[in-house]
């Protein structure tokens, strides 16, 4: 990992859970630079503490996790966000990922999985659960199916056949290693494919946001 430990911040409204996660991270050698229990606090403290990785719950008081993610990643694209959330918040998870989160883990994951996910998120790897892969696949199909927003001038992002194939295998619970074996490609290539699927979605989202801002005159300030 390098000389200085990774700086991590934990945001969750449940104190018991937050402390437990922070302790696990600290025990594993990460530097927990801040914690926060609500959305407003999260934005303020993240700006002051400048963590490398933000471990973020989406269900937050005062400001939703998706908004926290959008603001912080918007201000500092180098920040990595790992969403750690209860399952069954489909729309939120998808929104968070489109707004710049690069990882998603459900709360029932083990400590080992969490530590691994934080490490991978820190180096810029996309951390997918099968559930997230299913959501992302669905989102591409939804975007391809037709206009949903106001007058979509930007063409819908598309997955290559290989990317679709990789994403489907992730959604079916195969590890990157297993996928690499099955498709006879390298582990690194699998990672790149997965990352690309996220990157295109985030880019599309940013373009749409900017276009929307221009249309509604929000770009004047």
């Amino acid at each position: 990992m390098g000389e200085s430990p990774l700086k991590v911040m934990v945001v969750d409204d449940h104190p018991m859970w937050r402390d437990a996660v922070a302790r696990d991270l600290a025990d594993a050698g990460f530097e927990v630079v801040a914690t926060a229990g609500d959305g407003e606090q999260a934005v303020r403290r993240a700006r002051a503490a400048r963590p490398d990785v933000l471990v973020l719950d989406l269900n937050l008081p005062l400001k939703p996790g998706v908004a926290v993610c959008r603001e912080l990643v918007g201000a500092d694209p180098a920040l990595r966000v790992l969403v750690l959330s209860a399952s069954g918040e489909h729309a939120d998870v998808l929104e968070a990922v489109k707004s710049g989160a690069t990882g998603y883990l459900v709360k029932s994951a083990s400590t080992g999985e969490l530590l691994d996910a934080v490490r991978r998120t820190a180096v810029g790897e996309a951390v997918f659960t099968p559930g997230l892969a299913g959501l992302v696949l669905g989102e591409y199909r939804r975007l391809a199916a037709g206009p949903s927003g106001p007058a979509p001038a930007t063409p819908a992002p598309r997955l290559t056949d290989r990317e679709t194939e990789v994403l489907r295998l992730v959604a079916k619970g195969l590890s990157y290693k297993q996928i690499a074996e099955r498709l006879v490609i390298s582990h690194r290539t699998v990672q790149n494919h997965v990352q690309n699927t996220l990157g295109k979605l985030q880019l599309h989202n940013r373009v749409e946001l900017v276009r929307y801002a221009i249309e509604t005159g929000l770009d004047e300030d």
Partner: protein
Amino acid sequence: MARETRGRMSVEQPLWRALTAYRVLTMLYAVALFASAHRHFVRPEVAVGYLAVLMVWTLATVRRVSDARSCTRGFLGVDLTVAVVGILLTPLADSAARIHAGGPTLPSIWTAGSVLAFAVKGGWRWAAFASTLVAAANLVERGAPTRDTVHNVILVWVAAIAIGYVVEVARASERTLARALEIEAATRERERLARDIHDGVLQVLAMIRRRAADGATGGGADTAELVRLAGEQESALRALISRGLPGPRDAHRREDVPDGGPEPGGEQSDGPLDLRALLARHATGPRIALAEPGTPVELPGHTARELAAAVGAALDNVRAHAGEDARAWILLEDEPAQVIVTVRDDGPGIPAGRLQAAESEGRLGVAQSIRGRLRDLGGTAELFSVPGQGAEVEMRVPKT
């Protein structure tokens, strides 16, 4: 209980109140009618005696027409008897000339109150019965059906039946409204529970699972059991708060789902169903993961239920062949022309050659039944296995 309370503040209530007032006022009217014309009566003592009974009866039973529960069958029977007896006594008390001229009966329009009580209590059939009886009594009293009598009889008859019918319709719509309110209240309660559970129990359960899982690496069967239990409860709760408790009707419907057999009596509608909700019922426990789009995947009811049943069969197959400990993943994909559901497990898979052998012998057991279901839906099911990566069943159903 709640429904009773709402029922009392209903459309029906004003009718009962009106009826209470009507009976008392028409009783006084009958007395006044007699008082104004008592000199013409041939036997005024009969009229006085009857009106005294009518007055006592009406005042004693004022509360009986204040709501449906007080208005018993016994009361209705006696009330109608009082009305009919009054009509039939008229020829004894009054002069034949007056009766022939179309004069009022002893209870006069009070009898309509009795008929209306039947209507409000029991609907149009009861109303038809009571008004027919009163009509018959009126015709007997007149001796011959004059035009006025027939008109009056028909008027009472039509009015009573119409009011009875309105009451029935009102009751039905109140029941619907009550049901809607119950559903709304249940939904709100579920949302409240979901928030509370999210903030409390779920977090703790997830943490127990994590903590225990970390501790269990050293061994200890008890801890492993605890991990399993906590994990199961956690996913059960998550499923509960996202879909809610099955009500009595839902529970019945849910039992129908797994077998997915022919639908008896068309009880299940063929309206579109979100396949995600049906599949979520299978994705219980920490060993089964469900990957799905964020938007509803709608299929006609029958198709959706059959497909979900096929997924259930595939999961049974996983348990049977890959063992209880095998993990399974369900992937639901919504393509423009078809819906694809894949069930994969991480079991030992199917050795090459065995699949073909089994297939050529025509015995693939569960796999065969999955194929059959899909074929009936106009779709396909494919079973394949990659060495070291478990087995997969891919089910495709066309959308139209």
